[in-house]
């Protein structure tokens, strides 16, 4: 009984987080179309409901009612496994993210975080690495050359960019001295000046670029580049299996935004946090405002993803590999070395002190 009560907040947070993640992913599709329209001097979807707000649901109904086609030459088991892996992996990532600080309800204090893993960052990296199997298996099982090419591109791209992403995070971990998300966010407490993107601008930049590549978002959307590969790895997919792939892309975008906000933009910290605590004397209010601040940051980054998509044209494949291997990895290594020297000087271990 006692263990159940201890686990209850985690379970509730996981359920709420699933709902919120799915809702945000759903409305990201609408947001994407609206942002695209505004950036191109258009109006965007406006038929379903006021300002087209019911458009995602109309799209969902369309997706569900479409005919489900499994190609005759496809491997049926893997064909279904592909989108499932993509969906499961992107939903799993959010578990370790700290959505807010302490909340006291019914005499119990708990963190707005499902699980505070001491290796949170490693967990996110592990799950993101697995999610490339969704693309690979889906493209392979389709038994179609376009799908296969898309899958190969996708996997090589994600593997190349994961390296520099990891290196940029190592530099951050070197500074913070922890792999736990909650710890990293708490260290950024105390105004914008303590946020990590000011301490580690280079890490932030590399991480941001790699996040675009990890999400298969433009300008790195080579796995599904329509002009060359028809639909890329999901050419053969239809109905809700295609929906899962598209949906997982938007969830990935949301999770990436959340990770960037937590690691580099203070997570649920916001300017004037201590002042609010002194005036209201209520940790609950501060926590809830913090959750709002966190989501504002996340929404900004989702908007940023869309903004970039409609600004920068797609990279050519060799350009992509050049950027990844010849620019980002050396830059990340340099950043790591520089960070190591700075840390040593800070802790006075250099020159035998």
């Amino acid at each position, binding site marked *: 009984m006692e263990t159940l009560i201890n686990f209850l907040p985690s379970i509730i947070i996981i359920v709420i987080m699933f709902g919120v993640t799915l809702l945000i992913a759903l409305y990201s599709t609408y947001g994407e179309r609206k942002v695209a329209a505004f*950036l191109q001097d258009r109006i965007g979807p406006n038929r379903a409901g006021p300002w087209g707000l019911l458009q995602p649901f109309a799209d969902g109904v369309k997706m569900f009612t479409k005919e489900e086609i499994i190609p005759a030459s496809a491997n049926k088991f893997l064909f279904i496994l592909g989108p499932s892996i993509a969906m499961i992996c992107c939903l799993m990532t959010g578990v370790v993210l700290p959505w807010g600080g302490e909340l006291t309800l019914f005499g119990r204090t708990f963190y707005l975080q499902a699980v505070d893993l001491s290796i949170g960052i490693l967990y996110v990296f592990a799950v993101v690495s697995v999610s490339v199997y969704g693309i690979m298996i889906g493209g392979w099982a389709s038994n179609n050359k376009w799908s296969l090419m898309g899958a190969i591109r996708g996997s090589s791209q994600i593997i190349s960019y994961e390296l520099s992403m990891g290196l940029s995070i190592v530099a951050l971990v070197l500074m913070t001295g922890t792999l736990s998300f909650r710890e990293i966010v708490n260290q950024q407490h105390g105004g914008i000046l303590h946020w990590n993107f000011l301490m580690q601008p280079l890490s932030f930049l590399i991480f941001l670029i790699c996040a675009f590549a990890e999400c298969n978002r433009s300008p790195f959307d080579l796995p599904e580049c329509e002009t060359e590969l028809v639909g890329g790895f999901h050419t053969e997919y239809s109905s809700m299996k295609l929906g899962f792939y598209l949906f997982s892309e938007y969830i990935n975008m949301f999770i990436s935004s959340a990770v960037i906000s937590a690691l580099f933009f203070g997570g649920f910290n916001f300017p004037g946090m201590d002042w609010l605590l002194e005036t209201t004397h209520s940790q609950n209010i501060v926590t809830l405002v913090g959750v709002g601040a966190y989501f504002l940051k996340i929404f900004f980054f989702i908007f940023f993803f869309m903004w970039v998509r409609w600004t920068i044209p797609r990279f050519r494949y060799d350009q992509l590999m050049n950027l990844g291997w010849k620019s980002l990895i050396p830059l990340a290594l340099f950043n790591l070395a520089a960070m190591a020297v700075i840390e040593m000087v800070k802790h006075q271990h250099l020159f035998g002190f």
Partner: protein
Amino acid sequence: MQTSFTNRKQVLEQKEMNIWERMYLPAIVKGMAITISHFFRKPATIRYPEQKRTVSEAYRGLHILKRDEIGAERCTACGLCALACPAEAITMEAAERKPGEESLYREEKYASKYEINMLRCIFCGFCEEACPKAAIFLEEDFAVANYSRDTFIYGKDKLVEKPKQGTKAFDIVKVGRQRELN
């Protein structure tokens, strides 16, 4: 050496990019500033069925057969419009006006049947120019859409201008329509 025949010849120089240009980032920031400026701009498109653009007075849309001041049809079925039509979209049949129909038809001869095939029509406006009686005009409406081809042959019921209230033609048409309904 071959000489250029135009004065617009340009020699394209491929310069090595400097470090600032090779960083890409300044150019990307510049591009993003341009796109975000469009975000706040007034959209160039409109909500079409609710909002419509005003068209020029000389716009050549669907045809209309005009009536005169007392509400009588101006067309005398001379056939000049059909002759002028490059797409051969217009056909008509003439009839003689009977006594008592003076308020319906302006001249002694009128078109008892007047059809324009809107799928053939190229909306050039030659019929309008050919008409000696100022009877046919191309107006502003343009959105014709339907599921079957035969609905695109417009007869007099769709082409003739609706009579103005107060004219005798208005009463006659109204009575006729009521008779049809009954």
